[in-house]
């Protein structure tokens, strides 16, 4: 897959995912905790019973049923017509709300890069499994949006779109969520990739997802320097998004106070997500994307 991507002239010059990692993703699929009605047949068991391959039940033959589904073994024993019922396999609507605000440029690699790689990996899994994949870039400047893709062949579109995203503007999660739900009617899987550094707060945005009854998986990405600031002395800390500044004298005591504020903030996010049934995974830019997908997202139940 990756080899194809490399040979494709339209493929991004900086591959988000390396070939070995893509091969590992081939065996994975996205797990939805909810049975979701799809639009087309896919590789996902649907609440609809019909033409799938996995046997579900029998029922009495009714006029108009396809003769091919009559279970002749039962007819021979019971002398009555019964047809086999199969679970329908439908596609899953996988949506990404990806934070592309200026704060996502922090970290090494940047938080945005990690978010794009995660979206690429998860989206790749979805496309391989015939799920629909869409991406909404989140920033106050009404970032670009990728309509739902389907099928392995659209992988390059996905990667190209992700590769083109650059950090800009302020974080406005609520606006991004509104834009996303304005274009998506189906319920599905919503994956939010953000640092949640929204001066307006993240709560209303996530509650909007709950209102639309979509399964939401929040991947909270933080840079190491945000978790443990490596600064000292008399500083004027300037917010890269808002331009607002705060003057501090950073010393050990100030860093301890920051750590307390940070822990309180992260605990608040965790409690919020737990309370509202939102899957939550926090990571930092120092964690490789392979480990995130193959280990932590599998443990978190997003992929399986």
């Amino acid at each position, binding site marked *: 897959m990756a080899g194809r991507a490399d040979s494709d002239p339209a493929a991004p010059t900086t591959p988000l995912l390396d070939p070995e990692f893509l091969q590992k993703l081939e065996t994975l699929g996205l797990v939805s905790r909810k049975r979701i009605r799809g639009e087309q047949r896919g590789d996902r068991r649907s609440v609809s019973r019909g033409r799938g391959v996995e046997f579900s039940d029998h029922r009495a033959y009714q006029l108009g049923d396809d003769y091919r589904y009559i279970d002749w073994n039962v007819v021979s024993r019971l002398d009555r017509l019964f047809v086999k019922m199969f679970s329908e396999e439908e596609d899953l609507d996988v949506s990404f709300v990806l934070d592309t605000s200026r704060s996502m440029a*922090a970290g090494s690699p940047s938080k945005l890069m990690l978010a794009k790689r995660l979206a690429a990996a998860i989206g790749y899994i979805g496309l391989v499994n015939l799920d629909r994949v869409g991406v909404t870039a989140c920033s106050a400047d009404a970032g670009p949006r990728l309509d739902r893709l389907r099928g392995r062949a659209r992988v390059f579109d996905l990667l190209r779109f992700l590769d083109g995203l650059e950090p800009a503007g302020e974080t406005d999660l609520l606006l991004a969520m509104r834009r996303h739900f304005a274009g998506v009617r189906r319920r599905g899987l919503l994956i939010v990739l953000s640092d949640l550094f929204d*001066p307006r707060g993240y709560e209303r945005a996530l509650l909007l997802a709950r209102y639309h009854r979509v399964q939401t998986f929040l991947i909270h990405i933080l840079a190491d320097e945000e978790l443990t600031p490596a600064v000292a002395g008399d*500083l*004027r800390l300037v917010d890269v998004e808002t331009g607002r500044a*705060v003057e*501090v004298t950073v010393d050990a*005591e100030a860093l*301890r*106070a920051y750590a307390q504020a940070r822990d309180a903030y992260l605990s608040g996010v965790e409690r919020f997500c737990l309370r509202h049934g939102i899957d939550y995974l926090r990571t930092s830019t120092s964690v490789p994307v392979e480990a995130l997908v193959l280990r932590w997202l599998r443990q978190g139940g997003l992929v399986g």
Partner: protein
Amino acid sequence: VTFAVPAALWGLLAIPCLILLYLLRVRRRDHPVSTILLWQRSAPTLAASRPSRRIERSVLLLLQILATVALVTALARPSIVERGAGGGDVLLVLDLSLSMRARDVAPTRFDRARDEAMEIVAHLRPGQRAGLITAGPRPLVRVTPTEDRDRLVAALRELQPWDASGDVAGAVRLAAAHPLGPGGRIVAWTDGARGPLPALPRVAYRILGSSDDNVGITAFRALRDPRGAEALVRVENFGTRSRRVPLEVTHDGATTYRAVLDLPPGASRTVVFPITAAGRFTARLAVHDILPDDDSATAILDPAPLPSVLVVGPGDPYLENVLRALPVVRAAATRAVDPTTWRSYGVVILDRVDPGPIPPGDYLLIRTVPPNLPVAAAGDVRTPDIASWDRTDPVLQFVDLRGVRILRALQLVPEGGRVLVGGTVPLLWAYEGEGVRALLLPFALQDSDLPMHVAFPLLVANGLGWLGGGALDVRAGETLQIPAGGGTRARVIDPEGHSQLVPATAGMFLLPPFQRAGVYRLTSASGERQIVARIGDPRAGMVRPGPADRAVPSAPGTGDAGPLVTRASLWPWFLLAALGIIMGEWVLATRREGDR
């Protein structure tokens, strides 16, 4: 620790300025962060941005403050002064001037000086010697260098200032002439109020006193003159501010004179007023100053100012008439030359007799030359002229010898004494010595027209007064020799009632120097005489402390506890510390910039 330039400590005011500049200085560097959300949520972190917190946490500021403190302290020239006497012999010189009684230093300058000297004695090391020299009117070695502390302390306790000026320079030179061993030194306590102090090696001065506020009586006399009697009072303002001083003179408790004197700084005023009664007069200044001892003075106008007189000779009517007119205690006449009877008379007048060697006593010799006086008679000289006479001498006060003619006189050849009236030959000769006080008139009264002149009774009165008159007037600090008049001992009673027995030596009572001003009484076989001791000299009342050059500072924080004999400068160390701190601050600041 003392500071030679304490004014430099004002430089510490630079520290608040430094802190202010530090706060005002824009030193924060911009640092982009993803969000300031978490920083804002940290209340203690916001507290970290408070200015006070910045000051607390700033090592650089702390170093800068320390450097400033060290630099300013170095500029103040600090030194540490160690109390004690050092290693070698110590000569203690104490000023006993009247001004050392000033009370601007509690209890007095002298008491403070003595306490400090005692402290030096108490801190003497084993084997270390100390001596004591006093700077009274005459320098005196009280205690030669000794290890005996008790002796030193006892000698110090006996000391009292004189009512006179002390010769501090002389005392210090006397001490400097004393051989001092290695490390030996001289410590002199004085107020330095009267002139510069000699700058001699190994001499340290402890200058005492802080004020010059003194108004004092520098002269008080009661005098008789041909017109009657009058008193003279001179008051001087030694301070630097104008004073308005009430003066009151009393006689037997009654006020005889009262005035208010306006005295500009450094000025003096003399008032003269007539007096009618005889006896003791007291002048007082109603003034508050640091030296009360010179605010009062006493003068005596003796009711019988002339002594008892015995005239030995053939008799002279002019002389007898004058003696009857003068206020002598008593007068008698005899032709017999019997020196044994002369003791009970104050003055013996030998008129044209040959007494042989005369015993100690007071004599008026008329054409008589005793063989035991340093004068000889080389025959007669006719019609000698009077060319000049010493008008300043008390014997010739108010005496006008113009027009006096002499027919015949002895041709005196003095070998001592002094000639009071001179011309072609000495015509009045005075002598004091070996118990004899004598006035010699080399011509008989009937051989001149002197008795016809007004000068005659004045001359006799002045002569009798000088020979053995009433109250004696001396300065404090002076010694006094009084002819014993045949007496063997006399008793001197000081103004406070303490008496001292004085034996006659070679026919004279050698009275010790009068330490305090006031009225002393001398009682002997020939009667009682009063002696008025005045303050030694007009400059004794000067109390302005001298400059503190070469002075030993007292130790601050020790209650001005005394001279500290060794002093080590600390400013080089403070300067070194300041440079070190500045270097450290620079290295730290440079490294921080590098880290950024």
